[in-house]
């Protein structure tokens, strides 16, 4: 059995202000009130604003979350901020529409001619251009006004008002193949693919060397007979040119990325596969989810980006951080459902079992939702709540004193910086930073913790969660 390592991670954002109205909440609220709709459309961010936003810079790996400036962040202007960073990029909306067309294998997305031309030209100059099927963009050109008016079709805008594309439904009667569901899935496929391509190019890895891809996004791909049929992973593998890979999806609400990493690492450790990629795309449904709070506080609509993430797991290369399969926490059925009980199972028990004091973990990556998004709508500061619980448990275990609570949370925790697409926010967003710090010797250990709200699906009153420890490679320099 070999020690699995995570040899790289990539993260992307795609600015989607025009698509934000198709998020679940705006989709329900905007048609009810013209004034709210007008206020929503008048509060969308420009691309430059989205690039300058410090949490976005942290998400794509340009700055560590603890290096973000004091809030408020939404008013930040920074002409020096770049859309590209070592771990990924923030793609503008016109390119995103082109990317959606480039990964649409069923010709469901139609682009206006000028939008297609603009997108194709921009993507032709993109660092990943040779990995994208840009011919599909040209083939997607059509009469978007006419297609938008077709039964069940969805008109798509660039920014507030420009009708630039239309999404057709996949079947006249199947709700699982409605234009809305398919757009959600296509957005996931596009952003997951973009992340994976960045990862492979950054690492200079041959796509044909990847054996398996595990998807851990929030989407549900399927038809009326199998609404969550799945395997977004293989769809992403195909479009990213991973000719020798197969794949599957791990579903576990927001917690899915950690089980996906653990399963991927187990497949490598067992020798079943040599290289496994874990991918997640963004969630269209979550766009604009907290917009009412933002408008109430005269803030822009902050949930206007689709996220994406990819990581590569392989056998020990003597340098990359190890994923410790002997330090995995799981939330057992009998563990209890309160927040401290869940965190005890995830942050305390696995470390105790391995004989590692909580103070020997340098960073705890937990649910890292951007608090500037959640607080205005009354959802509080999610990471802060998590760190308070972890610190309290550390104090109870005797690892720290009560006087050290704040310091523990401040130095081993961090401000939230992820969009409210829960699977991306659940520790996964910290992976590029964790790998940097573990490689660079700034950290010895990082605990990755994810939680999922199973009760939302009405099949169980329970939550779930999983955690895993990452550790500096002892053979590394």
């Amino acid at each position, binding site marked *: 059995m070999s020690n699995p390592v995570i040899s790289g991670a990539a993260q992307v954002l795609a600015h989607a202000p025009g698509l934000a109205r198709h998020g679940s909440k705006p989709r329900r609220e905007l048609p009810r009130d013209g004034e709210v709709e007008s206020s929503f459309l008048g509060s969308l961010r420009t691309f430059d604003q989205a690039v300058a936003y410090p949490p976005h810079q942290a998400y794509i790996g340009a700055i560590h979350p603890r290096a973000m400036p004091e809030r408020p962040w939404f008013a930040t202007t920074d002409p020096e901020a770049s859309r590209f960073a070592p771990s990924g990029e923030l793609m503008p909306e016109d390119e995103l529409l082109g990317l959606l067309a480039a990964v649409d294998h069923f010709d469901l997305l139609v682009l206006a001619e000028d939008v297609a031309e603009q997108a194709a030209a921009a993507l032709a100059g993109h660092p990943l251009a040779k990995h994208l099927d840009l011919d599909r963009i040209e083939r997607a050109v059509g009469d978007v006004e006419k297609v938008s008016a077709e039964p069940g079709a969805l008109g798509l805008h660039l920014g507030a008002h420009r009708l630039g594309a239309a999404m057709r439904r996949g079947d006249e009667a199947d709700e699982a193949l409605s234009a809305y569901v398919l757009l959600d899935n296509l957005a996931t496929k596009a952003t997951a693919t973009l992340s994976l391509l960045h990862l492979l190019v950054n690492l200079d890895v041959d796509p044909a060397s990847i054996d398996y891809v595990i998807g851990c996004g929030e989407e549900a791909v399927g038809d009326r007979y199998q609404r969550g049929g799945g395997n977004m992973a293989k769809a992403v593998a195909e479009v990213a040119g991973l000719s020798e890979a197969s794949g599957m999806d791990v579903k576990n609400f927001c917690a899915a990325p950690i089980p996906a990493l653990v399963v991927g690492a187990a497949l490598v450790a067992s020798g079943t596969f040599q290289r496994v990629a874990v991918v997640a795309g963004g969630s269209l449904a979550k766009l604009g989810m907290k917009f009412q709070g933002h408008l109430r506080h005269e803030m822009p609509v902050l949930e206007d980006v689709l996220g994406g993430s990819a990581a590569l797991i392989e056998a020990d290369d003597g340098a990359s951080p190890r994923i410790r399969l002997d330090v995995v926490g799981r939330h057992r059925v009998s563990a209890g*459902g*309160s*927040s401290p009980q869940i965190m005890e199972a995830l942050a305390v028990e696995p470390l105790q079992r391995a004989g590692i004091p909580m103070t020997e973990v340098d960073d705890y990556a937990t*649910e890292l*939702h951007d608090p500037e998004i*959640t607080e205005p709508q*009354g*959802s*509080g500061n*999610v990471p802060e*709540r*998590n760190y308070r619980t972890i610190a309290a448990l550390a104090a109870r275990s005797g690892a720290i004193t009560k006087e050290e609570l704040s310091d523990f949370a401040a130095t081993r925790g961090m401000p939230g910086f992820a969009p*409210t697409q*829960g699977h991306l*926010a659940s520790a996964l967003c910290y992976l590029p930073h964790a790998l940097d710090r573990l490689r660079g010797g700034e950290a010895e250990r990082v605990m990755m913790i994810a*939680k999922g*709200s199973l*009760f*939302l699906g009405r099949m169980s*009153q329970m*939550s779930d969660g999983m955690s895993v420890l990452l550790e500096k490679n002892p053979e590394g320099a």
Partner: protein
Amino acid sequence: METLENKLVIALGERDGVSGPAISACAEAAGAKVVFSATECFV
């Protein structure tokens, strides 16, 4: 503990706080009848 005797309770739990079933268990132990219980996730 008698304060909830013969009371009807709606238990709204939060994932990051106290779950619906936990509130229900407390309310029932205090003599209430729980007519609705749910847990929600606000992120």
